[in-house]
């Protein structure tokens, strides 16, 4: 089973939920945690995994043989991302705009385009407290998160419960991370920002047809608008985490909530039961 932890707004507590859910289940079943927040992975700060493998993620980008190129312009017109420009007797490649679709190479009638494999990030694998830990990281200066996320997800173990820590937002990286999940937990906070971005995230997971529920973090701050919205939309509220200075302090030093606060351990157990029931239903 694959459970994605996502949110429209950043900083709501995705990683906290992902890490603590994984920890609270690791003695009952085999668990893998995937950190797909590849722009700024941080689950390792809490779980301190021991990494055993590191492999590069590459993107096929075009290289133009200017001798063979006839400047016909077919490739520059075909490129949806405008990563190619025809200038005088040359075709210029803008590697950082290229999404690696390979269309230019397929269409080039002169056979002037070959692909080079540009390194855009890496995937690391290891274990942390008995949890299989897989993490993706983008290289500095690169712009494409989805290929790195897909590479992380290609390593999903078939026989384990997989928990995905998604990037924030509702654009391509978030969609790449939650796509194909059996269930999605949307983490939010009871503020106007939290509600606004939750609504966007709900639209995405509905469009993708993924069953989902909501966790409200820092539940006593802000207002009651998020809960009102959930009721109106008949969206299950899976868990509320109180706004408690002790929890914040624990998080700030990289501590683990379920190990320090027994009341939260039982909340996470309840969260899992709610997820399990909804996936099986």
């Amino acid at each position, binding site marked *: 089973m694959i459970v994605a932890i996502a949110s429209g707004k950043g900083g709501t507590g995705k990683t906290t939920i992902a890490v603590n859910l994984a920890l609270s289940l690791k003695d009952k079943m085999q668990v893998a945690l995937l950190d797909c927040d590849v722009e700024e992975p941080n689950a390792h700060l809490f779980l301190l995994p021991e990494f055993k493998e590191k492999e590069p993620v590459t993107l096929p980008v075009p290289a133009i043989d200017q001798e063979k190129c006839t400047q016909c312009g077919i490739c520059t017109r075909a490129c949806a*991302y*405008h*990563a190619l*420009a025809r*200038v005088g007797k040359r075709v210029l490649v803008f590697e*950082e*705009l290229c999404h690696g679709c390979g269309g230019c190479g397929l269409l080039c009638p002169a056979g002037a385009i070959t692909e080079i494999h540009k390194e855009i990030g890496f995937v690391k694998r290891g274990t942390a407290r008995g949890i299989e830990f897989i993490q993706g990281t983008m290289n500095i200066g690169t712009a494409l998160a989805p290929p790195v996320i897909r590479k992380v997800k290609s390593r999903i173990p078939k026989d384990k419960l997989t928990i995905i820590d998604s990037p924030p937002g509702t654009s391509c990286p978030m969609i790449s991370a939650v796509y194909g999940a059996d269930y999605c937990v949307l983490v939010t906070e009871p503020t106007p920002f939290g509600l606004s971005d939750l609504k966007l995230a709900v639209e995405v997971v509905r469009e993708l047809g993924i069953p989902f529920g909501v966790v409200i973090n820092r539940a006593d701050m802000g207002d009651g608008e998020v809960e009102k919205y959930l009721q109106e939309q008949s969206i299950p509220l899976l868990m509320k985490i109180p706004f408690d200075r002790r929890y914040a302090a624990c998080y700030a030093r990289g501590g683990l909530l379920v190990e320090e606060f027994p009341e939260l351990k039982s909340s996470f157990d309840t969260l899992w039961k709610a997820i399990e029931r909804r996936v099986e239903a």
Partner: protein
Amino acid sequence: MKIAVTSAGSSLDSMVDERFGRCRFFIFINPESKEYEAVENIYTGDVHGAGVQVAQFIVDKGVSALITGNVGPNALRVLKESGIEVYAASSMSVKKAVENYIKGKLTKISNPTTPSRHN
């Protein structure tokens, strides 16, 4: 000889549009005869690579110089490779910008003035 000016409107009295890739109009003008043509920028809605695409459009128009406000690195590379000189103008009409160009009063842009905006 023909030069291009990014413009907020379709006449010579319109202000120079300081955005390059997402300007409203291009004015292609012969600085001597003042004959001109205004063309709407159809690439403003493009999410990806508007700068490169618009630079390609300008190159294909066969101009020798461009007057605009800000240019990013990708667009500037395309323009430079084709030998188009890029000049900066702001808070002035297209007409005034062309006059200043003729008098040699505009500053040449040789480095990107904005960061790349792709994602």
